[in-house]
């Protein structure tokens, strides 16, 4: 209880609240502008939070992402362009509602469900993370090695259509993680005599490059003009919302649960949560034929799912240092910079800080109601923003943001190289998320493997000797081999039937 009081003091003070409102406005704006993603919002926000204390910095990121994911619904409903990938699953549904003249219904439902889903995710985060941390306290390098391996596996399986391309992305991320001189290997690798590379590829500039520069490049070569919004005033946003929620309260709960669980899986965040819950909603609906014709049921599921996922993604990030998605990968980088190294010990040593993060999460979702309401009211203005002026501005922010972390232009070069790299990869169907996970988890896999090997005097068996390590190890092997075996069996069957 005492920790919660301390946490309350850390969060509920004018400075932190002001930071939260500002980052909320930023998140809503970035989320609502098509082509700018929630991850990009985070990457651009980090250089600023870099100069704050840990709690306002983390509160800013949590608020910004929650808002951006909700705000992605706005251009989805009004223009049929998802503001962020997390809204992609249900743009058609929302847009059809708008075409039927019910834009306010689509957005109002989205707002309320986003808030409720987000609150659900926060509660799960606040209750399960400390318990999990307690359990993980006895984890040693063996367990962390397997956890990191599991994380990498999930990243490949979930995040891409082509498994080979996902694997390529993952390996490239792992390769990037080996650049520089690590503490365990103590030898500068792939630095080619460049001192700036000795510390490895700077993470935040890399993120800014991959999520923001690539977007500016895509805009620069965009041959189709940006679509225009129709001018038509909104009616009441929340008319009939009670009935909708009452009718679909089960969907709300289901969406929240699916979202949280998918969030916890490494490599999958709000976007995948929304797709899965849309499919689930349609599958189990009493009126599946209405889906796609402007039916509000799917919106309830998805809007709650993608915001609930947010809380879920923070669970593995804070307890194990394993990112739940690309945004929490950035968060982990920030936690390290703020000397709040993620892992079970931070829950023991500084429970008030951890509780403050939970509290900030909760508050952020509550703030969503009034601020989101405002954003919807202002949406026409936001959507009319001139990309011609916005994109160069973002470019300049990227440059200064990359520079600000280490005060070196070398980081601007890193941003540039990885931005072009990410652009080419995405154009050709290679997913970006596994690259990020590879960069974050690569060090963890390698360091824990080598230290474990030194401790066990070169015996592989040690990776299975401790009970939890053994279970995790077997699980990792199963996750790798089962899909492989099923594909092989299917292939063999297919070839037998063709011959």
């Amino acid at each position: 209880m005492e920790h919660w009081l301390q946490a309350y003091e850390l969060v509920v003070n004018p400075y932190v609240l002001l930071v939260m409102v500002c980052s909320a406005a930023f998140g809503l704006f970035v989320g609502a502008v098509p082509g700018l993603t929630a991850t990009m919002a985070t990457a651009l926000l980090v250089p600023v939070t870099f100069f704050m204390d840990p709690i306002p910095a983390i509160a800013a990121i949590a608020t910004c992402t929650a808002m951006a994911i909700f705000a992605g619904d706005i251009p989805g409903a009004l223009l049929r362009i998802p503001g962020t990938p997390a809204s992609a699953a249900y743009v058609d549904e929302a847009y059809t509602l708008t075409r039927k003249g019910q834009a306010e219904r689509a957005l109002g439902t989205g707002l309320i469900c986003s808030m409720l889903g987000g609150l659900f995710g926060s509660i799960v985060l606040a209750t399960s993370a400390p318990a999990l941390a307690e359990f993980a306290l006895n984890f040693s390098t063996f367990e962390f090695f397997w956890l990191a391996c599991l994380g990498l596996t999930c990243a490949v399986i979930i995040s891409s259509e082509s498994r080979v391309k996902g694997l390529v992305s993952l390996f490239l991320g792992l390769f990037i993680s080996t650049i520089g001189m690590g503490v365990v290997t103590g030898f500068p690798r792939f630095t080619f005599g460049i001192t700036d590379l000795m510390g490895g590829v700077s993470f935040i500039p890399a993120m800014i490059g991959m999520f923001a520069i690539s977007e500016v490049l895509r805009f620069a070569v965009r041959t189709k003009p940006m679509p225009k919004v129709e001018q038509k005033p909104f009616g009441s946003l929340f008319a009939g919302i009670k009935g909708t929620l009452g009718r679909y309260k089960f969907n709300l709960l289901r969406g929240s649960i699916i979202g949280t669980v998918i969030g916890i899986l490494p490599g999958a965040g709000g976007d995948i949560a929304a797709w899965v819950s849309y499919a689930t909603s349609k599958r189990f609906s009493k009126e599946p034929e209405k889906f796609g014709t402007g039916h509000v049921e799917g919106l309830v599921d998805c809007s709650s799912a993608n915001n609930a996922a947010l809380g879920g993604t923070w669970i593995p990030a804070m307890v194990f240092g394993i990112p739940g998605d690309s945004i929490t990968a950035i968060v982990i980088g920030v936690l390290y910079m703020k000397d709040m190294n993620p892992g079970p010990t931070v829950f023991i040593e500084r429970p008030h800080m951890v509780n403050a993060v939970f509290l900030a999460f909760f508050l952020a979702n509550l703030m969503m109601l009034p601020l989101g309401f405002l954003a919807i009211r202002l949406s026409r203005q936001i959507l009319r923003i001139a990309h011609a002026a916005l994109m160069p501005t973002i470019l300049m922010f990227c440059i200064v943001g990359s520079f600000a972390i280490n005060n070196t232009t070398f980081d601007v070069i890193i941003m540039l190289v990885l931005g072009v790299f990410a652009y080419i990869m995405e154009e050709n169907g290679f997913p970006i998320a596994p690259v990020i996970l590879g960069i974050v988890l690569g060090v963890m896999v390698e360091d824990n493997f080598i230290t474990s090997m030194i401790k066990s005097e070169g015996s592989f068996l040690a990776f299975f000797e401790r009970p939890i390590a053994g279970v995790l190890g077997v699980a990792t092997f199963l996750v790798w081999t089962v899909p492989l075996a099923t594909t092989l069996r299917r292939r063999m069957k297919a070839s037998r039937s063709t011959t």
Partner: protein
Amino acid sequence: MSKNGFLTSLTIGAAAIGALMAAASPAAAAYPDRPITLIIPWGAGGGTDATGRAIAAVLQDDLKQPVNVVNRTGGQGVVGHAAIAQAKPDGYTIGVITVEINQLHWMGLTDLTGADSYAPLALYNIDPAGVQVRADAQYKTVADLLGQIKANPGKLKGSGTGQGGIWHLALAGMLNAAGLSTSAVPWVPTDGAATSLKELVAGGVDVVTCSRVEAESMISAGKVKALALMAPERSKLYPDLPTLKEQGLDWSIETWRGVAAPKGTPKEVLDVLVPALKRVTENKAFTDVLDKRGFGRVYKGPEDFTKFLRANDASLGATMKAAGLVK
């Protein structure tokens, strides 16, 4: 509007900038007339970061200019140390240098050395290494520990920092002095003393040769005990802790921290910075930070600091050669 209109506006803009610059007076104001950057080659939360930030805070009041701290981490300190050495020598970028600068070049990781690549300004801290074991370990003295190592070479594991770091050297030097091979205690590299001590408590390693002060919280929590200090004489801070020398081993090693500017920094600037830093090391706000955390306080001005750096470099080089860590 036409393309010409655009060019006109560009020209006007350029002209305006030119006029502004022409109007500027050429006379430079007295140093310092803008913010100073203090580079710290280690991450947030460590001892170098804490002491460096304390210096920045006091120096800022002394010089009446903001002093901004930048953590340039990675590459076991190479990145930050290089950034200080390669900064424009105008006094607006200075940094904290640490013992690693006299180690890294022996391993072929950089060309920089403490005495020759910088303008040393002030040495403010020295901490000798300690020998720490689990509180419930059977051995009471270093001799017990060494006996155990001699009986089962390769069985006990050591830790304290990364591969080839200063505490790795401390252990290697101790084994060397005792006539043991450095492979008698395999090194488990970690990202720092805090992690190594956690491993020690968890039973993953058996001896941690980080500085005594870094082990303070674990020792006062009763989980770790210190066997000896790797110093020439007993410390005033820990009068009951014997030195290795008393236990028959001629070996001492320490970590140190100091402030340095890039080589070639003009004399006018040094004349401002050196006395300012001396005042900082005497300031209560600064000494409190060091005392509270148990860091050993010293002060050496530029000349003494340079002499110290040369002696330190030579002795580290000799032990690294003996330990087989030199490339």
